[in-house]
């Protein structure tokens, strides 16, 4: 595992009294949470509960209006420089992969290391090939994303994010857009990544994954955090009524 856990002390991500509105709609309500280094957090909740918004605030794809979010101890501000610095250190994997269709798999992986990290091309390519091997698709390096299956594309997206050698990885429903037979290969990759000690925040409905990997499960509803617990008690003995209702709906 080449990803080193950050050297700085203190939490990897910290939310202090965060509030966010879309127009008049109060999307995130008084979020207080801290994610330790190497911790794996799974965020779940009904659709529209604000879970994607929450992790998209971490790399400033969404702005928050009140409170503070600190990543690696650095507070997120409006300054473009600080935003770009944070994004270099926080990898993200999206529901719809968001690979660049005009570039090959290898070029997708080396684009940011070359242009943002200013790595020499050969070095970036070597690193990319190493990570593509880790997600078990090195033979696809010369193909375009459109020629791959959904599961393969999502694994490329994971490799692409890892090429920037981030210290934190965000996953926004990484398996929701996949055909059922491809979910396993992506989850396996994520499990492997989790075992390597990567700090991860994962929005997902894959409760098996949450049970296996998460240090804590965060349940959100209507823009607020309703319940936070270790996976075993969370699934076996949910406390809040809304958690119980949600779990009874998705776990048949």
């Amino acid at each position, binding site marked *: 595992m080449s990803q080193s856990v950050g050297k700085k002390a203190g939490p990897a991500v910290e939310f202090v009294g965060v509030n966010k509105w879309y127009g008049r709609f109060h999307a995130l309500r008084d979020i207080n949470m801290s994610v330790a280094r190497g911790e794996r957090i799974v965020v779940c909740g009904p659709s529209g509960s604000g879970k994607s918004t929450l992790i998209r605030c971490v*790399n400033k794809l969404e702005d928050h209006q009140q409170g503070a979010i600190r990543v690696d101890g650095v507070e997120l501000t409006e300054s473009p420089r600080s935003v770009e610095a944070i*994004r270099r250190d926080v*990898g993200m994997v999206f529901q719809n992969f*968001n690979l660049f269709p*005009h570039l090959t798999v290898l070029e997708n992986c080396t684009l*940011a290391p070359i*242009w*943002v990290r200013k790595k020499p091309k050969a070095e970036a390519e070597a690193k990319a090939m190493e990570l593509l091997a880790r997600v078990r698709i090195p033979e696809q390096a010369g193909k375009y994303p*459109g020629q791959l299956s959904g599961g393969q594309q999502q694994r490329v997206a994971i490799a692409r*994010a890892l090429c920037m050698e981030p210290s934190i990885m965000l996953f926004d429903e990484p398996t929701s857009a996949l055909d059922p037979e491809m979910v396993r290969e992506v989850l396996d990759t994520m499990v492997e990544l989790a075992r390597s000690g990567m700090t991860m925040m994962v929005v997902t409905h894959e409760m098996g994954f949450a049970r296996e990997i998460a240090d804590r499960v965060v349940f959100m509803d209507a823009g607020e955090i309703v319940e936070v617990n270790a996976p075993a008690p969370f699934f076996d003995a949910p406390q809040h009524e809304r958690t119980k209702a949600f779990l009874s709906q998705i776990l048949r």
Partner: protein
Amino acid sequence: MSDAVFVRNAPAPALSPPASLVGPLGWARANLFSSVASSATTLILAGLAPWFIPQLIAWATWKAIWSAPDGAACRTAQDGACWAFIGQKWEYLLYGSYPESEHWRVNLTGAFGAILIGWLLWTGAPRKALAAALFFFVYPFVAFLLLHGAPNMGPPPADSFIFGRLLAPLWAGLSNALAVMRPALPPVDTILWGGVFVSLLVTLVGIVVSLPLGVLLALGRRSTRPVVRALSVTYIEVVRGVPFITVLFMANNLLPLFVPDAYAPDRFLRPLVGTALFAAAYLAEEVRGGLQSLPKGQYEGSAALGLGYWQAMRLVALPQALALVIPGIVNNFIGLFKDTTLVAIVGMTDFLGAMDNAMKDTVWSGPTILVTGYVFAGIFYYVVCAAMSAYARGVEKRLATGRNR
């Protein structure tokens, strides 16, 4: 209910399709007789073809006058084209009144341009960055020097600190260099320029200037900065809301009013500026359409990787957006090429203008001259436009095979 269980024991064999789907019969069915209206059109055109195609061929070939010293032969042979007229006026149609002894300069400029464009458009060519640098930064100066000749710069303006004092040695050096070149490249006043040469030049300058300007305007219109956006929107909407002829008249008559007399743009430069600025507004909307049709995820994906705005645009958004709107961009360029005929209105002699002038020659006047001249002009414009659209189709095909299954 034994029907409910079905297990295939042998694979269903792949059969070849019926004859009505493939081969010449299948092609005719799909393309000529797919519906009642299509069948009727096919039959009517097939019935008319034997009548008008031979006539057209006869008019253009064996009934035509191929060579003659003047219009006498053409005036007697009235049911054939007068190609002799085109042959006699060929030089004028190509170069306008550009002095004959200096035609090599136009040819050389054209050859340089063709080589550089070929280099840029040829897919597998090496060192494309060098080609682009030469084409955009070196070629314009070389072309100016060749076509316009070495100008007399005169003494540096005494009242200007920058040119009169700071850059005085540079001014003197450049002035001397131009003086050395002047015997070989005597200035040719732009009033003498004309013909195909002017049409292609206006088109080329229009494309080269309007493409980057259009991209910048498109990005400006999508900018989050209100001032940048407002300026872009205003520019695009004003220019699009005005007919091209108006832009030409404005460029011709208003541009000189905004700058001091000494720097007043050449009468040839004014319509060039007008053409490029006009085309840029249309191109901007085309490019904006491409940028807007990209999924939001492409922008988020590049942002999440830490790419800055210009990097994301240059490396991720624009390559995809421009590829998406190639048909529209080429459509604009074809329109631009045909619009160059309008510069005749402000006194430039483009190819069509040269043709009009040639047709006024009393030595050649006759009933077949007009038709011949315009048919020839039509063929010329058609061939250039068809070449542009063939190139665009090639590019589209290449991009499509590379990216999607």
